[in-house]
């Protein structure tokens, strides 16, 4: 049981929780001086969180590499499109 809970998945969960707090802090001006800077920071942190969920919890890290590249491509495209819409 100990090996079940003290696992890589638990570490990823802790990182995800920390990233959530971090993105909230960015939204309150930590590390950025503007709403635009906060938007970039929050979008990036959130998409990294999604990547971690897909790579680790959904186990794409152990799948054929093409699957993870599709995910990376989707996340980059979504991030760029969101930021383009925000700043245009």
């Amino acid at each position, binding site marked *: 049981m100990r090996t079940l809970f003290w696992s890589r998945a638990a570490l990823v*969960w802790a990182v995800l929780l920390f990233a*959530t707090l971090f993105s909230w802090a960015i939204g309150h001006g930590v590390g950025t001086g503007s709403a635009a800077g*906060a938007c970039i920071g929050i979008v990036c942190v959130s998409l990294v*969180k999604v990547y971690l969920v*897909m790579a680790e919890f959904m186990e794409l890290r152990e799948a054929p590499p093409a699957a993870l590249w599709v995910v990376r491509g989707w996340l980059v495209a*979504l991030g760029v499109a969101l930021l383009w*819409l925000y700043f245009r």
Partner: protein
Amino acid sequence: MAATVPFAPGVEEEGVAHRTKARALPGEGGIWLFIAGDLSIFSQLFLTYFYYRAQQPALYSAAQQHLDQGLGMLNTALMLTSSLFVALAVHAARRGMAGWPSRLYWLAALCGVGFGVIKIFEYGAKISHGITLTTNDMFMFYFILTGTHMLHVMMGIGVLLFLANYCRGTGDGRFTPAALRTIECGSLFWHVVDLLWIILFALLYLIR
């Protein structure tokens, strides 16, 4: 042959079926097709929201002041924790840890119910302040996006309860490769519910 299939029935460790070193997608092709479709639709919704947000940023920012970031954070923590329980349930099922997969799916479902209760509380608070779907564009998106996600949460809780019961069926904790694939497919759906919320939380609650 074991290296060419996702799960090799012949490869067992102490009688327990487990994933081989073969690199293959977890679950089955059909669930990944569904996930791709779901993520594609939600991506379009996210972009539509940002497109209209850019037309009236002041209105959206003012409306977002009414969203409770604390409850959003709590719901994010619940979603992430439920996803962890689901990931651990899959690991426990592969290792043949009798009883643990079912317990972990129950815990994940409880987190899902907690998420739903908080969402109902949040909706109630909005409606009691006269804020509805027709208040303005921002709240139309808020209710449509979170409502569509909530439908996923309800379906996901059903899937988790099914898996909790499904895993209870094997007294010795051993699963066939086919049973493991069923477990993986249901678990993947719940992770999608989690990752959609991660993006929704950022777009609706945090970016102002």
